[in-house]
């Protein structure tokens, strides 16, 4: 009798403990939701203070950005334009080369070659962005200045190239994954029709993996949008709308760094520009990530025979 009830007591204590532990684990998992809510709350809440003083239409369509000097202008387009230029240059560098690396790894490379190449790509991906910034400023820019004397010390081209190198491993490994998931029967079908291997790669395997490849491209470009240190160091701090990649520009991220490094008093409209610009950046990268996930899920070609 006695022993029985003590076993029961122990068992119910055990059950209570199990219940508490499960709640605790759940709370930990929920913390990520609070992080998202925190980001949204901070960005929208603080931007509201900004939009009390600056009309949203002026912010989104204005073509001059000078919030720290008098007279002040709050048109975000020069920052968006500067960022876009970096992203386009990075894309021109990284997308074709990254896809070629992906094709090489999935279609041509022997297992031994793969074993050698992949760790190097991983190292390239693990190098901190500050190092890429240093590389842009002290290596790429002098070469560009040597080739094209009109190049300014701080310029979009150098930063864009380096951001391209930075996202290259991501493009390569994600597109390799996409290409590898194409079943070999499709390739063999191509060969049976007499196609050579580049014809099989480019007109069968790549189209079959196009959803994975495009989502890899979008994710990599979204990374380029949010890149901060390389562009802060190498692209300059001159917000302007220009088509000339040899000039100094400023990206959204570089502006955020500039403001937070200075001693802008808390509560001023200059301080709140930080949050308004970050909101634009967040909106762009967030939608790109959603689109990439959507493409991957919605348009995935399922081969399960």
């Amino acid at each position, binding site marked *: 009798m006695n022993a029985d009830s003590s076993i029961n007591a122990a068992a119910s204590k055990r059950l209570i403990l*199990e219940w508490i*532990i*499960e709640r605790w*684990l*759940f709370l930990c*998992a*929920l913390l*990520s*939701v609070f*992080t*998202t809510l*925190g*980001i949204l709350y*901070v*960005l929208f809440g*603080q931007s509201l203070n900004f939009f009390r003083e600056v009309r949203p239409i002026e912010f989104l369509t204005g073509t001059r950005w000078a919030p720290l000097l008098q007279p002040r202008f709050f048109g975000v387009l020069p920052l968006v334009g500067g960022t876009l230029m970096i992203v386009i240059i990075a894309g021109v560098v990284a997308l074709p*080369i990254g896809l*070629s*690396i992906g*094709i*090489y*790894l999935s279609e*041509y490379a022997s297992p031994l070659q793969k074993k050698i*190449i992949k760790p*190097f*790509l991983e190292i*390239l991906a*693990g190098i*901190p*962005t*500050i*190092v890429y*910034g*240093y*590389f842009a*400023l*002290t*290596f790429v820019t002098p070469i560009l200045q040597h080739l094209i004397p009109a190049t300014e010390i701080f310029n979009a081209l150098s930063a864009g190239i380096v951001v391209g190198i930075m996202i290259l491993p991501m493009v390569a490994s994600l597109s390799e994954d996409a290409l590898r998931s194409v079943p070999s029967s499709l390739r063999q079908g191509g060969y049976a029709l007499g196609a*050579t291997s*580049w*014809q099989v790669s480019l007109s069968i395997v790549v189209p079959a993996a196009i959803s994975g490849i495009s989502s890899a491209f979008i*994710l990599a470009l*979204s990374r380029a949008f949010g*890149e*901060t*240190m390389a562009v*802060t*160091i190498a692209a300059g701090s001159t917000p302007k709308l220009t088509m000339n990649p040899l000039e100094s520009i400023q990206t959204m991220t570089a502006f*955020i*760094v500039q403001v*937070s490094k200075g001693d802008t008093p*808390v509560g001023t409209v200059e301080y709140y520009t*930080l*949050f308004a610009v*970050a909101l634009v950046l*967040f909106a762009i*990268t*967030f939608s790109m*990530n959603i689109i990439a*996930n959507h493409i991957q899920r919605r348009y995935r070609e399922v081969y399960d025979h």
Partner: protein
Amino acid sequence: MQVDPQVSARIMRRSQAIDGLFRTFCAICTWAGIVLLFVLIGKIVYEGLPGLNMDFINNFPSRRPGRAGLKAAIWGSVWLMGTVTVFAVPVGVCAAIYLEEYGKRGRLSNFLETNISNLAGVPSIVYGILGLAIFVRTMHMGVSVLAGGLTLALLVLPVIIVSSREALRAVPPGYRSASYALGATKWQTTWKIVLPSAMPGVLTGVILSLSRAMGETAPLILVGAASYIASTPGSPMDQYTALPIQIYDWASRPQAEFKDLAASGIIVLLFVLFLMNALAIYSRQRFLSKLKG
């Protein structure tokens, strides 16, 4: 239909030539990426190695490049990593356990999963903004190791969760069934059987995420890491600087001497990251061989 054998041979030869060219092009792209890595590291070693000595490791930063050193930055980074480990590792691993072992099915865990993958894509500077508004201002932590560490902890949390889940998933289901068969509860099974088997895998992810946090610069600038500080932190509420912050400060000065210091700093940073990665690879190998054996 008649096909001229000469024509078809020509088409085939051309096709094969293009084939060779395409293959060569892909190979060149691949090896170019690797050559680039060597150029990058070579450039940094060439500029930075002459300035690398014990004085550089032991000195505080200085206005005179000859006497400037990394002491404050190294200790600042050590404090930050300690803070990240204390907060992000337990929470990340617990979240992974919940998602993998407890709440596997259902809309809620789908939602949590989507949310985590979205968080992983948020630019690091946005985490800096979050840290600035929540930790530095609202919670009045000010410019402190704690505020910086918590910001980085939130940043790497998705990485820890994803990699820990992979490690937990790799534990064979038979381990769990055997434990239940002996009458163990869910938590006993998780704590005594699943987690120990998954530990090396979890550790790999933790080390990799710490090495990510180690190299992060932008969020720390936002939460106010100082670029000129001549002391090491003594408590979590102290001011601090960090390796990448110090490198950024030196790299953005116009004088060439400071640029070389930045290169020396980068060598130290890359060396630490290299050690961490080697440790992670070692731990992954052990994990895989243990699961096989």
